[in-house]
């Protein structure tokens, strides 16, 4: 294993606080009187310009993580415990007005469903302009120029024409590109992409990913990429966090986590990926299902589905082990 320097802690610019820093972060949703823990004790950093991928099955809490960073859900629905900060600014108890200043400004987000994420009754250009109205004092004329510039950055050939179109006149891929243009309107430091390509077909997927990648390099943008598509993660991510049942099972450089997975869950997940079917053998999924947040017990949450598990895995909460600088796993018998 060669040392890898994309990690914030190792880089010479370590004086600058990470764009996102989560320490022992737990999330709770409220359902009437019940308070359900959906994410437990998660810690990770995203450095400036870094492409961080958060992977996991449905229900693992990935989307909730994204929503927590943006504080998209009101406090009475989503509670945050632990530390969460953006460029050194703690987000957990930032007043709503200041949070609003960050949303769409320094932190922006694109969503899974480009078909429904745009207002059907408003022209594309107007929707992009709206973001600028909130965060900048550009005049109308300047905003319109910027809209066209943004639309051509996401590779629209006729940006002026697209700006006057309504969402129903665009295809899924075009809408997602328009969403990216909107997210970039105020030169954010962090782009949260919540499964941005899941609803798109493969060729369009590639196009969208290339655009994100190019803009990231051009604008020194950090990306929090939420996905369950490991081939995309392998291709684009610098660092990877693997979330399972609300716990970060493994986190580290892409080469380590994907290349020589330490946690049996990561290994099992990779084994399901279709790109590994070159031997013609049909891959089986991981037997069993993700335990619901309602029946989480002490010990490893993956143990019922893990082929290496024994009594020790159930006995006590599994501590985080640092395998090497910046590579962590939550397993008592790591594979590597």
């Amino acid at each position, binding site marked *: 294993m060669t040392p890898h320097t994309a990690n914030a802690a190792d880089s010479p610019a370590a004086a600058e606080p990470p764009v996102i820093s989560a320490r022992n972060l737990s999330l709770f949703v409220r359902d009437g009187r019940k308070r359900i823990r959906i994410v437990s004790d998660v810690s990770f950093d995203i450095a400036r310009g870094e492409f961080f991928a958060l992977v996991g099955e449905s229900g693992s809490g990935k989307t909730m993580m994204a929503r927590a960073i943006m504080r998209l859900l009101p406090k009475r629905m989503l509670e945050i415990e632990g530390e969460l900060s953006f460029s050194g600014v703690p987000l957990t108890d930032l007043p709503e007005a200041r949070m609003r200043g960050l949303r*769409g*400004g320094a932190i*922006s987000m694109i969503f899974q469903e480009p078909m429904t*994420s745009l*207002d059907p009754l408003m022209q594309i250009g107007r929707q992009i302009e*709206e973001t600028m109205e909130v*965060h900048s004092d550009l005049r109308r004329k300047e905003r319109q120029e910027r809209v066209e510039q943004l639309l051509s950055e996401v590779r629209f050939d006729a940006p002026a024409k697209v700006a006057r179109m309504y969402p*129903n*006149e665009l295809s899924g891929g075009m809408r997602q590109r328009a969403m990216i243009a909107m997210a970039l309107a105020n030169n954010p430091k962090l782009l949260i992409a919540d499964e941005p390509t899941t609803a798109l077909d493969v060729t369009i997927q590639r196009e969208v990913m290339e655009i994100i990648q190019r803009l990231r390099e051009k604008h020194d943008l950090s990306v929090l990429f939420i996905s369950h598509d490991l081939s995309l993660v392998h291709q684009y991510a610098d660092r990877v966090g693997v979330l399972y049942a609300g716990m970060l099972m493994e986190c580290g450089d892409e080469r380590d986590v994907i290349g020589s997975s330490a946690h049996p869950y990561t290994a099992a997940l990779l084994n399901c990926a279709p790109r590994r079917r070159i031997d013609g053998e049909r891959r089986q999924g991981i037997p069993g299902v993700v335990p619901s947040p309602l029946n989480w017990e002490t010990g490893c949450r993956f143990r019922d589905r893990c082929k290496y598990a024994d009594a020790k895995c159930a006995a006590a909460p599994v501590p985080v082990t640092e395998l090497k600088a910046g590579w962590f796993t939550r397993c008592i018998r790591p594979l590597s």
Partner: protein
Amino acid sequence: MAIFGLLRLAPGDAADLLLPDDATDEQVAETREAWGLDRPIWIQYGQFLSNLARFDLGESYRYRAPVFELIGERLPATLELSFYALLLAVVVAVPLGVLAALKKGKTVDAVVSVVAVSGVSAPSFWVGILLVLFFSGYLNLFPSSGQLPYGVTVPEITGFVTLDALLSGSWDALYEGFRYLALPALTLALAMIGIISRITRASVIDAGQEEHVFTAVAKGMSRRAIVRRHLLPNAAIPVVTIIGLELGALISGSIIVEVVFSWPGIGTLLFQAISVRDMPLTTGIVASYTIIFITLNLLIDIFYVFVDPRLRGSKG
């Protein structure tokens, strides 16, 4: 056709109505021939249809005047009343519905629900009488019947009292016109307020769950700006639909309300025509209600195109 058939089936002979009680059989036969009542029913129906196509609705038995003219004289009053009732209903119900949706589950929401349900449940003839008792009987604030007080007239330009008063600058008549409109319009509006406010509430709540509202939050927009720019425009579409459907209720409601308030519109005229089995007049009025209803629905459909870009052809 149903109207035509039912009216012919109803007991009573039109000729009896046209003639004094002591008319001889000969006179009756003569009258029947003159009005075409002796011919077979399908011939009468065919005649009716071909006349209708030429805007000839026949002659009223009772008023001995062309039905078309009678309706023309009374129609503006009905349209005016309906217009203000609808305006009042929309102006009251839409904000109420929006408020209830934004304060979902709170006291305001519950209060609006109670008001809405009572508005829908109370029959308008009963509400009308209560309003008359209270506002004109007890408080003596608003007149209980008619369109204008005796002696006040407006020059007839369009036939719509308030519009004519405005155009001719007769401020007294304008004021009186609105005073006379108040109670019937309110009665008519109450029934619609209930339904429109409920639908508005539901569609604002639905619109709030759309994903693009999330996008707007993620843009950093304030709650207020999101409601105004994204929620309300999207909620407007089902509200417009229900207003279109409510036009039917408005028309049928206006007949009763006109009778209760002696409003000189076609509703009162229809009531009188039915009472004396004035067939041409009845069929004529019912046909005009149908035409009004169809026209209004067409207007609503055209309106959609302006609101919803998805219904417009691609400009691409």
